[in-house]
Structures are given as C-alpha cells and as structure tokens.
C-alpha cells in the first residue's frame, strides 16, 4: 500500500551532463520511494551528434536492460503514464551540458551591488566576461563597445535598495539599450534585473523590446546590509534553461517531456544541499562538491543560510586549456607518485582538454587525472571561500574548512578505482579540518533529486533515508603547530561488540581505524600540545562513527598538507598515504 505522501508511483529522473547522460528510476516499495537502478550513456549534446535526445534514449535503454522494465515504446517514445508494468508516471530532468553563458555583470557600486551580482552569476553555469559599474571609470562608449564586442548571452543588472533612487539604474539601462540597438536582433542578450524593485517596471519598458528576454527578479540587496540571492538564482537558472532550449537541439523536447520540470544541474544540486542543510546540527554546515567536465560546483548550507558557486574555469574538460594559467606544472607534479617528465604533464593537460570524454587506461594517467582534480578542488575551494557571505561563515564555525558532512559527486572521484584514491583526492583538494564525514554520491543522484524536489518533495527525503549515499570515511583532522613526529592526539575506539582499541597520532601522519562493516563505534579524542580536533584548541570530545567504507581516517598531515621537498621522498610519501587508505 502506498503512503499518502507518495504522489506518483514511478519517477524517471534524467541528467544530461557534458560527458555522460544518466537515467535514474525511482519506484515505490512498501510505501516509500526507492532507487531502482541507474542507466548511463555518453552525452550527445555536442558534435558530432548535436542532439541530447539520442544520448537520453541510450541511457534509458541501458536502464531498460538493467531493470527489464519497458520505458520506451517501439518508436522510442516515453511511455507515460505507466501501464501494465511499463513506462513511468513522471519525468524530471537536470542539464549541465552546453557552454557556460557569457555574462556581463552590471552593478551600481563596485563594492556592493556589483559583488552581489557576481555572486549571483556564479550560482549557475555562467562565465563573467565583463563587469560594469557606475564608479569603474569607463566611458559610456567603452561600456557600449564592450557589450557589442563580447556578445554576451546574458546581462545581470543589480543595484539600489528597494524604494531608493532609480535614476542611476535607468542611466545604466540606457547603456545596455544602446548596445542592444547596435547589435543584430539574434545576438542580443537576455537581461536579468535584480536590483531596486521600484525601477523594474521602467527598466522592463525600455529593455524588453531590445533584448532577447527581460526578467525582473527580487532585489539581491533589498537593503545595504542584506543579500538574498536565492529567488534571483532560480530566475537565472530558468534563463539558462531557456537559452539551452533555443541553442541545444533536443533540450526543448526534454522540456516538453518533463512538463517543464527541467532545471540546471548546478541549481538542482545546490537545491538538494540547501535542503539537507536545513537539518544541520550545531554550527557545522554541509558542503556539497561536484567535480564535472564543465565545472566544479560547490554549495555550503547551514539551516536557512547557503552559498552556491559554479566555477566553469575549473572544469575537468575543455577549460583545462586554461589550467596552466591557474597552476604550475611544479604544483601538479607535487601530487604525482610517479617519475613523469614535465613535458608529458603539459601535453597531458592539453590532450585532456582536447578529448575531455576520454578516460585514463594506465596507472600513470590515472594519477595525473587525480592530481589535476586535487588542484582544481583547491583552487575552487579558495575562490568559494572568498565569495562566502560572512553570516554563513559564522554558522560554519568561522572558516571554509569546518563542514559536516562533505558530500562529493563526480565520476573522477566517486568512480575512482578505489575508495582510498577518491578519498585522498578529496582530503588533499578540500583539506577539511576538525571532524567530518566524507560521503560519495556514487550514483550521481543529487541533480536528479534536486530536479524532483519541487514537483515531488517527498522523493528526496525518502531516497536519502533509504541510505543511498555511500559514506567513504569518518575523518578526523587534528590541526596543530607541533613538530612532525610529536604525539598530538590520543584516543580510543570502542566498537559495538565491545572491542576497544587505543591509538596515538603523531603530527605529519595519516592513520586509519577500521570499523567493521555494519558496526558502529564510539570514538574518544584527547588532543595534546594545543591541538584542535574541531572542539576547540586542546578540548577533548567524542562521537559515534561507522557506516562508512573505510572506517575512521585520521589526517594529521597538517594544514596545508605538507609534502617532502625531495622528489624521491615526496613520491614515497604519496605512495605510503595511498597504501594507508587501502591502495
């Protein structure tokens, strides 16, 4: 018998990524939604196929093969609603395929509205190519020429507090209007206005006829000391979907198939992290990190506060062409346990950018891929920290490293050959502090669940309760200034069966305490030498651990992680760390 909360029996969630297209089937088992299976196929949004539907049909056919359930009819059309054990009752979808939208951000004041507007742009897959503000020293001609030359897909305009002066906004709108008049109709950008709401009507009157779309959203800075990005972020996601519908073949069909339940993957993912963040305990926020070919997306959430950013410049695909502008080959080599010539590394980076969907077949290539991922994670976490609102930082313990749990998705990490390889990449890239749990979204569920949350709010709750996410490890990161080799932490782990194991941790080490499968344990920690394990400097603490694949990992390698300078020792150290986590 179905729960009254369950509003549709069978739900198909589709996700169109840059490299892979996934189909997730959810069905009702004993009154609750459960994940039945996932199908996967290469994405077909880009050349040579240039039609997302082909990849979708392949992913759904893969799902049919796995489940034995017919979802498509003889003409490859979706069977909706379900009948006689075939088809589905509802379809939702998320998309990350397609280039980042070229975005010009216009704000009244550089330090206030412009920065908020840039943060808004980062909540979706946008590439900010230009910023314009009243006090940036550019002439109107220069601003107009930039808007013409850059051919943005989108202009985000913000500024003014609600009810405040609207004249400066109208002046900025004149510049945008002038540039649009000088641009051919098919090249004109869409405009998202999220400033002083009292100016919205006048701006719509002047800009709507001249742009490819005008949306007035709620003010992202309703008052000088308050920022509220979420409503505008939703409108931005809708504008991105509209752009995809007109530019990527098959996306409009997908929109129709889902009855409009199509969102950007980054928005869907952030939505789910916000949802999970609402039940955060204490002052530890949840962190969601998705490493994809098109971008790295990061969301932190704690209770009602959240921050989401998408970094297309740090994607593992084509954007690697710019990787060596962000990091050096020496930095990359630091994380590789093999002897590899610099020239090979440099060629590898450009080669991966040329063929983003190709996969490492040799151990050497796998190590390079994970080393690149470490650096991209580090760079994106650093950028994320800069854009994080002070309020959320306070809620997250005053830093960008204290989260519980950290939910990671992306094939490069979640489908790594061993859990240890994926975990070590996350620890080195994100460098969390204190006590946390690293969870892998191995089935890449978050975008699908995020796409479903509006139309089927019960689905994500029940799916998460069913334990679909795979805990990689409970992680303890003691932060200490002690010299390497000094004992900085003592503790004990008592498992369900009463077994107690005592341990000591020295500064610079990486240790693992296995917790047998299916068992829980009580972990007691006594930091020494002014060490902080997340309870405050020198403060002891205890917690329940277990339910993860590796058990408890104690990462006392220091923050930032210290690697030996000498190449031979460095390579040995990297191999030893990996061996510690199971190879």
């Amino acid at each position: 018998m179905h729960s009254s909360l369950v509003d549709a029996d069978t739900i198909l969630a589709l996700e169109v990524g840059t490299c892979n297209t996934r189909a997730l089937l959810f069905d009702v088992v004993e009154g609750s939604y459960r994940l039945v299976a996932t199908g996967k196929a290469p994405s077909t949004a880009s050349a040579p196929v240039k039609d997302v539907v082909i990849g979708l049909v392949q992913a759904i056919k893969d799902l049919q093969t796995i489940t034995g359930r017919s979802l498509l009819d003889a003409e490859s059309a979706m069977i909706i609603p379900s009948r006689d054990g075939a088809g589905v009752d509802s379809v939702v979808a998320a998309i990350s395929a397609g280039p980042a939208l070229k975005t010009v951000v216009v704000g009244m004041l550089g330090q206030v509205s412009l920065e908020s507007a840039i943060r808004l742009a980062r909540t979706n897959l946008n590439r900010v190519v230009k910023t314009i503000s009243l006090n940036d020293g550019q002439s109107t001609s220069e601003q107009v020429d930039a808007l013409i030359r850059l051919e943005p897909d989108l202009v985000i305009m913000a500024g003014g507090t609600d009810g405040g002066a609207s004249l400066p906004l109208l002046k900025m709108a004149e510049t945008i209007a002038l540039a649009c008049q000088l641009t051919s109709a098919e090249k004109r950008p869409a405009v998202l206005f999220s400033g002083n709401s009292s100016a919205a009507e006048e701006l719509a009157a002047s800009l709507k006829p001249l742009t490819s779309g005008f949306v007035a959203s709620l003010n992202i800075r309703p008052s000088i000391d308050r920022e509220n990005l979420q409503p505008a972020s939703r409108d931005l996601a809708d504008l991105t979907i509209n752009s995809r519908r007109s530019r990527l073949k098959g996306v409009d069909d997908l929109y129709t198939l889902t009855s409009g339940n199509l969102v950007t993957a980054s928005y869907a993912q952030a939505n789910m992290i916000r949802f999970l963040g609402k039940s955060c305990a204490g002052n530890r926020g949840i962190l969601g990190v998705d490493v994809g070919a098109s971008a790295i997306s990061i969301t932190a959430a704690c209770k009602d506060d959240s921050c989401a950013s998408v970094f297309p410049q740090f994607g593992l695909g084509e954007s690697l062409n710019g990787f060596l502008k962000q990091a050096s080959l020496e930095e990359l080599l630091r994380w590789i346990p093999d002897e590899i010539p610099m020239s090979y590394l440099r060629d590898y980076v450009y080669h991966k950018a040329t063929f983003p969907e190709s996969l490492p077949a040799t151990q050497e290539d796998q190590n390079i891929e994970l080393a690149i991922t470490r650096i991209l994670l580090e760079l994106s976490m650093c950028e994320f920290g800069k854009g994080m609102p002070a309020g959320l930082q306070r809620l997250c313990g005053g830093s960008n490293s204290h989260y519980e749990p950290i939910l990671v998705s992306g094939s490069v990490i979640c489908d790594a050959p061993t859990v240890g390889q994926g975990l070590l990449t996350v620890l080195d890239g994100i460098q969390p502090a204190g006590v946390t749990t690293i969870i892998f979204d191995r089935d890449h569920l978050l975008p699908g669940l995020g796409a479903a949350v509006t139309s089927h709010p019960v689905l994500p709750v029940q799916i998460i309760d069913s334990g679909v996410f795979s805990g990689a490890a409970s992680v303890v990161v003691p932060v200490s200034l002690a010299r390497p080799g000094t004992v900085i932490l003592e503790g004990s782990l008592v498992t369900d069966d009463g077994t107690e194991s005592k341990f000591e941790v020295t500064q610079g080490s990486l240790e693992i305490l296995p917790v047998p499968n299916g068992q829980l344990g009580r972990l007691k920690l006594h930091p020494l030498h002014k060490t902080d394990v997340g309870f405050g400097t020198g403060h002891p603490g205890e917690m329940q651990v277990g339910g993860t694949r590796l058990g408890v990992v104690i990462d006392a390698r220091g923050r930032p992680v210290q690697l030996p300078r000498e190449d031979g020792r460095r390579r040995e150290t990297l191999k030893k760390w990996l061996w510690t986590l199971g190879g």
Partner: protein
Amino acid sequence: MTLAPVIHILPLATVVRERNLPVPGQVVVHLDQKVSPTDVVAETKFSQQHDLVDVARQLDMASDEADVLIRCREGDAVSDGQVIARGSGLIPRLVKVPRAGKVLKIANGSVLIEINSPLFKVLAGLPGTITRVVSDLGVVITAYGSLIQGVWGNNRVDMGLLLPSPQMNSSGDILEAKHLDMSLRGAILLAGYINDVRSLQAAVDLPLRGLILGSLSSDLLSLALQAPFPIVLTEGFGHHPMNPVAYKLISTNVNRNISLNGSPFNRFNGTRPEVFIPLPVSQPPPQGNDSDELSGGKQVRIRRNPNMFEVGILTSLLPGLTQFPSGLRLPAAEVQLESGQKVKIPLANLEILG
C-alpha cells in the same frame, strides 16, 4: 549501441561547408561560382567601436537646447576633428568629433558615432563551388577531393603547393630548423613533429604557407597560434607520429595544390581543422557521416595511452566492464593494431576513422 565521433580521412569525398557572417551583411559571390580558400564570400560592416559625444555636457546646457545646435544628421559621415556643434558667446565652445565615422543616432543632446573600421570578411576556407546563397548571411560551398581532419588548428586558412619535409622518412620524424631552406618558401609543408622553438620560428621566418604536423610539443602553443600561416595537427600534443592512414593519403598528394583550414575544433558546432586536396571527379562521391556506431570491422584510432594514436580494426565489443591498469572498470573493445597485436581499449578512448 555506442556512438563514436568520426574523424574523416577520406581519399575521395563530397565536402559541404557553410560559411556565414556573424551579423547580416553582403554575400559577394554568386551561385555556381568557383572559389579558392582565401576568397572572400561575404562581408559586413561590423564595427565594435563607437564614440558617444555628449554635446549638452560639453556646452554646459540642457539636452533639448543642445539638440538645436547639433549640425550633423543621422547617417552623415564625419571626419576626425569635424565640428558638430558650436556654442554661443564671444569665444564659442566647439564640439568636435574625436574619430572619423558615421553618425548613428542623435538624441538627448548626444551624438553616437560608429567608428570607421575595416569590413569583416568571411573566407571560403576550401576550394569549391558555391552551391547555395543565403541572402545577406552566407553561402554553402561544395567541393570534391581528399579530406583529412585534424584535432588542433591555429585558426588560419591558406592554399598552396604541398611539399614533404626534406629528409622525412617516416610520419614521426622531427622537423628541425636546418631542414628548412628557401626552396620551401611559400609551400605547405608535411612533417611529423616539432619540439623546439627554433624550428617553428624558422618556419615562421621563411615563411611557409602552411604546416601539417602529426603532433607538436605543447610548450610551442603560443608561437603556433601566432604563426602567420595555418598549422594543423592530425594527432595532438606531445611526440606522436602522424597516423599511417592520414600520412599515406597526404604524402601521396605531394606537389599538388591543397588547402589548409586551421579552424579550431569546436565541440558545439562540430567544426574541425581540415586538410583538403581538390581532385577531379566524374560522379560526386558520397559525403562522410560525422558519427557512427562502434562495431566490429570499423577502423578506429586510439586517443589515449597506451597505444595513443595508433590505428587498428575493432574486432569485437567486450561484454560487461573491463578492468584496466588504471584500476578503472570500463566498457571496452578489442582492437587489432596494424602490427597485428590485439589490445583492449576503453570505448571512450576510440574514434572511428572514415
């Protein structure tokens, strides 16, 4: 069914390419006209520079008062320094045009001037015949001949005589500066690999008219992008010999006039760098498909290590997932290389040649 991209290496094919302006303009060729790669097929005024002259502000008056004093009209051509408004008084203030151009708009006491700039031109990119004209926008060109697609190009186009690199014995030979003498000036050179700045600089200084390489050291990327002639890589970055199928086809056409289009690979619209060798035909040959299903008997190229850029025949798709030395378990195929060796390759690392 697993679809894979097809890299065209076709001895004889019909090639159809669209060439469009970014904004409406003028098509300067006509239907059935023969064109060469560097011929302009369409052009437009595409000025990205404007001056907004705030007459009211310069004359310190209200905008409606300034409007009356503006002497030019919309559509007028104006020259550098031309006076477009004059104030009153003993020594009247003059408002001058900062740069020559055309008056686009006069409103609110301001004059918007479009700065004169060279025409934006679209080149044919390959030698062929105009088979369709899209009014104000562009053309479709059809050509017959050999087509070899590459993986990287430096966004330049030219046509010239194809010559092999001197002392080139195999598709992986290194091109050195000492090989480049005046007899190669103005030629499109076929070579294997360049790994030092001196050699590429020597090619630039000569200059060549084009360069077809199997691979290039990635630290030469910025110089390759600045080269005044087209460069096309058939394989990619690093030291990799040109695949034997492409090498054989190109090297059997030396001393012919060929076209080289270094358009970079664009994964969203599908354009690729191309070598095109025009050939006479009695019947139009077929066009190649841009994607095909991976299946037994297909000629494939491997795009990751091990066996990177080797060519072989796909003998079978392997059931389930195959574990690789990287530790990854992936859908894979068995491929028989030209040496006769059989290797297992992830499907994601294969592209079809055809």
